[in-house]
């Protein structure tokens, strides 16, 4: 009996310790995460839910009063021609400013990974635009595109292509494309650096073995380089995707959404409604839609890539 009792006591004591340990083990990670969680909740979750609520109101963004209008703002978006135009512009912007800088970045990285003279200088030259303030970039390109005195038209005239000289930012047909050029210029350096780092991590012996097996340069690129860049691709495309959804400042500073509304994107149109038209309820509804679109596009991609990594 005594043994049994002792054994039972030991078992109870062990269970208690285990339960306490388990409880402690459950709480400890949360304690560590708490400071970051507080910041996350206060500065992201709370404003996000607050915005969601205001998207259901007719608040003008200045007055102390507002009315709850249900889904009226979302219905109004369906009838707003600028929203449709902005959504199309966003789509074009996303495709072009993801694909072109990523491809150019990869090409430059491959070229700079070889035996090239002045490699550090070239890397700096290609990366520097990415660290310039966007408003400064907008001013620089605004002058370059000046129809009368700008370098772009001057160059075209000098090489005998004066007929192609255009008021690049002053007409609907060219304005969006003209703003995408500085965006590409800015955004090529970053993927180039990431790809360059990834390229330098590929073991040389893989290329040597492939050469021994008679693989050509293209085959080596396709069957060795590209698979080894999968990790870099994930980072580059995910960051580019996020960047393209955030587009605002370059368009705002370069064309102010014009001419007319030709270069409006969802971000700028949201800003115009909230800050300039005193339609904060409607503007935040646009912001909610932008967020949902970004989540809808981003999450499947991130999940698929995460699974692949696991």
């Amino acid at each position, binding site marked *: 009996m005594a043994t049994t009792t002792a054994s039972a006591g030991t078992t109870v004591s062990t269970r208690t310790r285990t339960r306490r340990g388990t409880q402690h083990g459950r709480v400890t990670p949360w304690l560590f995460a708490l400071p970051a969680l*507080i910041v996350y909740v206060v500065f992201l979750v709370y404003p996000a839910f*607050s915005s969601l609520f205001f998207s259901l109101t007719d608040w003008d963004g200045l*007055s*102390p009063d507002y009315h709850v209008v249900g889904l009226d703002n979302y219905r109004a978006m369906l009838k707003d021609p600028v929203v449709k135009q902005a959504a199309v512009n966003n789509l074009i912007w996303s495709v072009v400013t993801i694909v072109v800088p990523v491809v150019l970045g990869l090409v430059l990285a491959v070229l700079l990974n070889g035996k090239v003279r002045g490699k550090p200088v070239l890397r700096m030259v290609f990366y520097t635009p990415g660290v310039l303030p966007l408003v400064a970039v907008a001013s620089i390109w605004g002058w370059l595109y*000046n129809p009368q005195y700008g370098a772009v038209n001057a160059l075209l005239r000098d090489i005998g292509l004066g007929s192609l000289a255009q*008021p690049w930012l002053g007409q609907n047909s060219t304005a969006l494309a003209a703003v995408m050029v500085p965006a590409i210029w800015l955004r090529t350096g970053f993927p180039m650096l990431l790809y360059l780092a990834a390229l330098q991590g590929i073991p040389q012996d893989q290329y040597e073995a492939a050469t021994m097996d008679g693989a050509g340069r293209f085959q080596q690129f396709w069957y060795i380089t590209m698979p080894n860049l999968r990790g870099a691709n994930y980072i580059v495309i995910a960051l580019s995707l996020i960047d393209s959804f955030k587009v605002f400042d370059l368009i705002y500073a370069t064309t102010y959404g*014009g001419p007319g*509304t030709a270069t409006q994107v969802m971000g700028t149109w949201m800003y115009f409604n909230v800050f300039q038209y005193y339609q904060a309820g409607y503007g935040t509804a646009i912001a909610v839609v932008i967020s949902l679109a970004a989540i809808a596009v981003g999450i499947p991609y991130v999940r698929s890539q995460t699974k692949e990594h696991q």
Partner: protein
Amino acid sequence: MTGKTYTRRSFLGATAVAFAEAGLSACTGAGTNSSGGGSTSSSGGGSNNLRVFTYEDNATIGTFKAQIAKFDQQNGTTTTVDSLPGSGAAVYPDKLRTELLGGSGPDVWRIWGGQIGAPYAKARQAADLAPYYTKYGWDSRINQNAIAGMTFNGVKSGVPFFLAGMGGWYNKALFAKAKVSVPKSYAELEQANDALVAAGVTPAGVGGKYGWDIMRLFEYLLEQSAGPELHDKLLTGAESWDRPEVVTAFTNFKKWQDKKWIPQGALGLDPADIEPAYVQGKTAYTITGQWTEVNAIQNAKKSASDFGTFQLPTDHTPVRHSGFVEGYMINARSGNKDKAAALIDFLVKPETQKALGITGSTVNGAEPDKSKLPLAYQWSQINKESPFYTVQDQAFPKQQTDAYFSVQSDILQGKTSPAEAAKRMQEIVSSWTQKQ
């Protein structure tokens, strides 16, 4: 709409309380402080700290700060000045709005009149200044037309200090090169434009980025084709825009571009770049106000005698020009309204206005010095004799103004006809007037 009215503060307050219970009130308290204001005191006569928000640029900010320092010295106050120079009425109001919603905002801010200043009065962010008008006798010292430009629904929400009159500002050397003189009629202006183009000079330097600069050309063309009475009725929506006079104005607007009387690709040009081009000798003239004498001519170290200014000819009596007012408002939630009003009173004293070099002061006895600002002085005399029509971006709310700028843009790109543009303008204006 449910019809139930909520206040933003009650929503923020309720959620903030929930956070406070979770021990987070320190992070969310700003939005619930109902006695915010630029200075921290909660009563009208509070602390000695003031904050002023303005859009003085590099050419004028030094003088402005010097006058503020003088006020501080006389009154024992400490006034902070924040300035956001740059894109005119396109960006500054956004920044001001953000500051006000941030729970604090400046005690005093500079703002344009009309529909740019109106939202701050309507939202009760700007204080009713009637008691201070009585206290300081501003009614008898300041131009009444200008006061009307900062009075909203009968509430005097601002104190105007600047009355702009906009017309042609030209480069005498380029006019001489093309052998043209100051036009006395619209036909003469068109002839002058042709002569300037023939001499290899771009006549009118206007830019379409933001819309408001090139708008000055269209509103002039509308005044010319419609005449004063109809123009005023169009601006208030009392008459339909879908009419021949408006079609004529849009037709002429397109003509100015097609005949190269405005710069190639004007729609994409930044006003900050193209407006001073007449001083640099790149365009013959521009359409602007008195500030250009300080900001463009004197800033470029040029002599005023090399330039001239004129009222754009309308062929109507009276000859009117585009105009607008600018003034100061006081934060309704400022804890220091009395001192803020004292500061404004100091700023609108004739001697302060003269020291600030205000080129179009609304204050009696503060006309610009003829020897220092001869061209601005000329406009002070024009303003006495000629009435003005409200500049269109102050006549309409921003949303309607931007829709109107889209019409301007489409006309110049040939995407819409003048007749269609007139119809679209009627839709834009009537949708606004129906909401009122």
